[in-house]
Each structure stands twice: as structure tokens, then as C-alpha cells.
């Protein structure tokens, strides 16, 4: 395990590394622009968006919010334990983080299957086009984050592992980015209109 001290006050070294933060900003701007377009179209077709929103299950969305926030909390704890050189505890917290991600995916699949069953596909109207595009694109990020978490957990537990605290912070930053996107996406898509 490498232990290098990084000065995070240096503009080039934000926690997790500058590259992951550039990715985070690009992702936030991409989702942000899509959400602005969603709200803009929603104000023009208020009745369509309102009726469509009533068909969404906000309770499932809230449950998913709780799963993501809980897994984000355990991700932060995993980074802390890794820095304190408690590798087994860090690994346990990473597994709980991954479990939160898996539960999110399970709930999302349940939600998607109900929508498909009722014929609420992207072709129905512009609300559902945005709904599928935004939530599915976010879901892809969660799946990628999950793969990164499981891979990091595997590599840090190897004997003579060269995993550094910064690697775990980068992994954590990606996972928290999924939280941040969901925190923008959920209220706009599920709650307003």
C-alpha cells in the first residue's frame, strides 16, 4: 500500500485527482443541460408532462435515493479506513457500498419493467423520452461505478497490492458523482410538474 501525502490545497491536486474532477464537471454539465431542456419542454407541454409524471413511482425514487446516499456514506468510510490502514474494514465498507449500488439497480430494473409492461416506452411522448434517456444514462454510470468498486476491492486485497489511498479516493469520487447526478435528476424528473 502506497502512502504519499498530497497537498489538496494545490489547485492541480483536488481529492481523487484532477482528471476525475474534469470528468465530474463534464458529466454535471451534460446532465444539467439535459435537465434544463427537460424543464423547458415541460413548461411548453405542461399537461403531457404533468400526466406522465403522475405515472412515475416517486416512492421507488426515494428508496433509491436512500440506497445511493447510504452507499455514498460507506464509500466515504471505506476511504477513511483505508487511510488508517484498516484494509479489512475498508474492504467490508466497499462491499456494503457495492451492495447499495446493486439494490439501486434492482429497484431501477423493477421500475423499468413496470413501465415497459404498461407500454410507457420512449416513443410515448417527450416526457418519457427524457425519462428513459436521463435515468438509463445515469444507471449506466452506476453499473460502471460498481465495476470500479469491485475491481478496487479485489486489487487492494491482493498480497503486495500497490493500491494507494488516492486510487480509492478516485474510485470514491466516481461513485459520489453518481450520487450528485441523482440528486439533480430525481427532484426534476420525479417531483416537479
Amino acid at each position, binding site marked *: 500500500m502506497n502512502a504519499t501525502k498530497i497537498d*489538496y*490545497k*494545490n*489547485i492541480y491536486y*483536488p*481529492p*481523487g485527482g484532477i482528471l476525475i*474532477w474534469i470528468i465530474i*464537471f463534464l458529466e*454535471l*454539465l451534460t446532465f*444539467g443541460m439535459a*435537465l*434544463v431542456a427537460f*424543464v*423547458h419542454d*415541460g*413548461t411548453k407541454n*405542461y399537461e403531457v408532462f*404533468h400526466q406522465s409524471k403522475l405515472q412515475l413511482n*416517486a416512492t421507488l425514487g*426515494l428508496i433509491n*435515493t*436512500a440506497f445511493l*446516499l*447510504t452507499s*455514498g*456514506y460507506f*464509500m*466515504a*468510510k471505506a*476511504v*477513511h479506513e483505508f487511510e488508517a490502514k484498516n484494509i479489512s474494514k475498508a474492504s467490508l465498507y466497499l462491499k456494503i457500498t457495492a451492495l447499495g449500488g446493486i439494490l439501486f439497480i434492482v429497484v431501477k430494473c423493477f421500475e423499468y419493467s413496470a413501465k415497459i409492461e404498461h407500454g410507457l416506452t420512449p416513443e410515448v411522448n417527450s416526457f418519457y423520452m427524457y425519462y428513459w434517456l436521463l435515468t438509463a444514462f445515469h444507471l449506466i454510470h452506476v453499473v460502471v461505478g460498481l465495476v470500479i468498486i469491485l475491481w478496487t476491492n479485489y486489487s487492494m486485497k491482493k498480497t503486495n497490492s500497490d493500491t494507494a489511498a488516492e486510487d480509492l*479516493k478516485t474510485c*470514491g*469520487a466516481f461513485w*459520489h458523482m453518481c*450520487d*450528485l447526478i441523482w*440528486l*439533480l435528476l*430525481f*427532484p*426534476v424528473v420525479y*417531483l*416537479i410538474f
Partner: protein
Amino acid sequence: MKLSKEYTFIALLTLTLISSIVTMKTSEGNTAIYSLLLILWAVKFILVAFDFMELKKANIFWKLSLSFVLTLILTIILLFL
């Protein structure tokens, strides 16, 4: 870390609960409530970024940049509502 992450986690869950109660009691098309709701979620966004992602330790440039992006997105959305 002390208990900072625990407090943040409790605050995040509490804000989620408050926003769900607000949503259930919202009358249709109430822009003021929608605005309040978006601000509540923005607070959660800030808590995750600054505490869980440790942005509070970063250079002020990153703190201001993220706050700017969040404010920009929310302002445009609120202007359309």
C-alpha cells in the same frame, strides 16, 4: 473524520425525509414549493460534495467551480418554472 460523516449522513436522510413530506403535501403547480424543493436537494448536493468527496479540503477554485455549476443549473431551471 471524527463524527462529521455520520452527521452529514443523518442530515442527508433528514433532508430526504423532509423533501418527501413536502412533495406529498404539494398542491399541483406550486412554483414556490418546487423552488424550495430544489433548494433542499441542492443542500444535499453540497453536503455530498464537500464532506463525502472531501471537497472542503480542496483548493478554493474547485469549491467555487462546483458551487457555480450547481447555481447555474438551478437558476436556469428555476427561471423556467
